[in-house]
C-alpha cells in the first residue's frame, strides 16, 4: 500500500492511470459472452464470500421481517373482532406473496435479489440461486406480481437476471383472452414514463382499452420460446404510437418493478400454463 509521500502525480501514476483506462475501455468493447465469463469467474472466486455475506444479510433481514409480521399478526389476533376487515386484507396480501409458490404448477427455485450500488442496478439483477439450485440460462424469472425477466448467466450459487427494463429485453405478449398479440419491451421514451413497457406490433384493427391486462403468450415455449403462457406483464395505459394504418404501440404499466423487488422465483419448467397461478390485481 503506497502513501502520498509526494503530493503530485508522477509519471508512474499517470502510466498506471492510462493502463487502467485502456483496460477498462478494452473490457467495455469485448463481446457480451466474454463479459459473462469474466463476471461468472469473479463471482465464483473473489466475490464469492462477499456475495455470500450479502445473501446472508438479506436472509437475516427477511427472517426478521417475517418474525415481525408474525408478531404483528399475533397482536392483531387479540383485536380481531374490531380489525377483522384489515386482517383479512393483510392476509390476502400475504397470500399473494407467499402463496404463489404453492400455486405454481412448475418446478421452481426461490431466490433473494442482491441489489447492487451501481446506478444500472435494475437493468440486471443478481439473485442468490445458481446452478447448484438447478437454475439454467434463459430460465424465466417471476415475482408475485408478474414477469421480472430472464436468467442471462449462471454461477454456482448466484445468477444474473436481465430484467424487463434492460434495452435487450423482449417477450411475446397477449391479452387475457388470447385475442391480441404483440411484442413487449422496455419503453425508451424521453419522459417520466420511461419506467414503462410498451406493447409493439398490435394490429391496427385491434384496439386495447386502458386497464387491459397483458400476459406472456407462451408462443414456441420449449422450441426456442422462453416464457410460459400466462405470466402477467402489465396493464395497458394508453396508445403510445401509431404506424399509419398498420400497427399500434401501447404503453404498459409493468406488473413488477425490478428495482424494488426483494425476492423472485426462477422457473425450471417452461412447458406450463401459469394463468391461474397469479392473483387478479387489486382494484
Amino acid at each position: 500500500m503506497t502513501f502520498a509521500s509526494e503530493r503530485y502525480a508522477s509519471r508512474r501514476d499517470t502510466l498506471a492511470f492510462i493502463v487502467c483506462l485502456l483496460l477498462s475501455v478494452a473490457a467495455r468493447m469485448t463481446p457480451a459472452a466474454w463479459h459473462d465469463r469474466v463476471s461468472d469467474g469473479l463471482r465464483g472466486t473473489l466475490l464469492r464470500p462477499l456475495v455470500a455475506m450479502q445473501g446472508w444479510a438479506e436472509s437475516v433481514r427477511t427472517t426478521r421481517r417475517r418474525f415481525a409480521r408474525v408478531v404483528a399478526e399475533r397482536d392483531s389476533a387479540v383485536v380481531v373482532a374490531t380489525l377483522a376487515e384489515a386482517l383479512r386484507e393483510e392476509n390476502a396480501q400475504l397470500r399473494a406473496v407467499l402463496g404463489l409458490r404453492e400455486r405454481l404448477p412448475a418446478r421452481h427455485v426461490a431466490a433473494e435479489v442482491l441489489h447492487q450500488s451501481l446506478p444500472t442496478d435494475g437493468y440486471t439483477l443478481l439473485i442468490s440461486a445458481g446452478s447448484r439450485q438447478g437454475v439454467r440460462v434463459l430460465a424465466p424469472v417471476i415475482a408475485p406480481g408478474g414477469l421480472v425477466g430472464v436468467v442471462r448467466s449462471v454461477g454456482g450459487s448466484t445468477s444474473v437476471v436481465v430484467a424487463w427494463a434492460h434495452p435487450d429485453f423482449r417477450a411475446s405478449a397477449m391479452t387475457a383472452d388470447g385475442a391480441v398479440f404483440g411484442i413487449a419491451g422496455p419503453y425508451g421514451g424521453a419522459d417520466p414514463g420511461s419506467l414503462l413497457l410498451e406493447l409493439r406490433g398490435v394490429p391496427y384493427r385491434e384496439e386495447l382499452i386502458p386497464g387491459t391486462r397483458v400476459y406472456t403468450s407462451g408462443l414456441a415455449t420449449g422450441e426456442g420460446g422462453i416464457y410460459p403462457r400466462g405470466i402477467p406483464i402489465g396493464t395497458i395505459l394508453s396508445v403510445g404510437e401509431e404506424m399509419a394504418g398498420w400497427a399500434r404501440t401501447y404503453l404498459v404499466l409493468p406488473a413488477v418493478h425490478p428495482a424494488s423487488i426483494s425476492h423472485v422465483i426462477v422457473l425450471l419448467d417452461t412447458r406450463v400454463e401459469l394463468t391461474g397461478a397469479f392473483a387478479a390485481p387489486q382494484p
Partner: protein
Amino acid sequence: MNAKRGAYRLRAVLLLLVVLHFTLRPWLGDPRPAPDFLVLALLVYALRARPGGAAVAGFTIGLLGDALTPVAFGAGALAHTVVGYLAAWGKAIFFAENLAVNAGFFFAGTWVRDLLVLVGGGHVQGTELVWQLLLWSPLKAATTALVGVMVLLIFRRWLAIRITE
C-alpha cells in the same frame, strides 16, 4: 504513528467498509439512495494514496462492481479508475482538513462515479438519465458523504487525518 501501523489501520477501515457494503447495505431499504460503501472505501483510500495506486484500486473495485451488475461491463471499471485517480490527484492539490470539504469530496466522488457509469454504459438515456443524475445519484452521494464524515470522525486517528470544524 509509524507507516506500517498506519497502513494496517487503513486496511482495517477499508475492510470494514467493504464488509458493511455487503452486510449493512441490504438493511437500509431502497438500494437507490443507500450509501455506497465501496466507492467510499475508494475515496478514503484516495485520501492517503498516490494517484496511480488509487487508479488501480478504482479499476479493481469497478471491475468487481461490473461483475455484480454486468449491464455495461467495463463502465464501472472506467468510472472508478477516473474517480480514484482524480480524487487522489485533487486531494494532493486542494488538500483540506475541513469536514465540510471532505463531505463535498465524498459527495462529488460518488456523483461523478454515477455520471461516468451512466454515460459510459449508454443504457440510460433521456429523462430517466436526468432523474437518475438529479435525484437518485445526489441522494446516494449525500448518504455516502454522511457516512464518510462519520468514518472520518470515528477513525480520524487511525487514518491520520486532522479535521477542523
